[in-house]
């Protein structure tokens, strides 16, 4: 597992359909736990770190995947 795998899970949970929310959010929690176990880093340190860097990842991905959005997103 790489850091982008976890960031991708956050993105999927945020932008999935409402009916998929519960499952995608569970997947996200599982990936936090798996990353914590793999890296031997406490989840209460790892999770805030992921949340802090995530906006940059999201802006780039939105720019690539949703170019039709009426916003000038960074990374586009």
């Amino acid at each position, binding site marked *: 597992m790489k850091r982008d795998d976890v960031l991708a899970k956050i993105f999927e949970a945020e*932008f999935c359909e409402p*009916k998929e929310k*519960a499952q*995608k*959010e569970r997947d996200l929690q599982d990936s936090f736990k798996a990353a914590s176990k793999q890296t031997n880093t406490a989840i209460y340190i790892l999770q805030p*770190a992921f949340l802090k*860097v995530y*906006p*940059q990842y999201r802006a780039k991905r939105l720019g690539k995947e949703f170019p039709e959005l009426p916003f000038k997103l960074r990374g586009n």
Partner: protein
Amino acid sequence: MSFWFIFVRMNAPFPTETKYGGHRGGNILEFYTEEFKPEPSPIEIFRQHLIQWFFAAKHIRFFEANKLTDSPAEEDLASHRMVCSALITFGEFATNFARQTKVNLSAVGLSVESIEAETRLLRNNFKMFHDVLMSYGEADDVLKKAFNET
């Protein structure tokens, strides 16, 4: 997010006296049309609000991407703090209401679990921009070290 509907209803003048021919003294047809106008049930209104809430949650993320990713303005951060808090609060109330009334949400493809999940995700959105536990640089360092990135 549109809580406009509730706001308008709360502030609408309540007719205290019903006159013959309708509230505004119109004809009898207007009176009956007004009196027996079908209105959405509270459950239907609740479902509508939920759908609007999910829509608003999606849009606050577009707002974050557009306005808060790099060097956010103070007023944008303040707006985000207020709206995100309101969305989280609505999520908590909606979860409680849906559990207590056992309202059927499957008719609109929703569930109590989906409301709870979205509320937790919104708390993450709040932390992203209003949690001062660590800076971007410190967070990046934590992840580089954890994943052995050079």
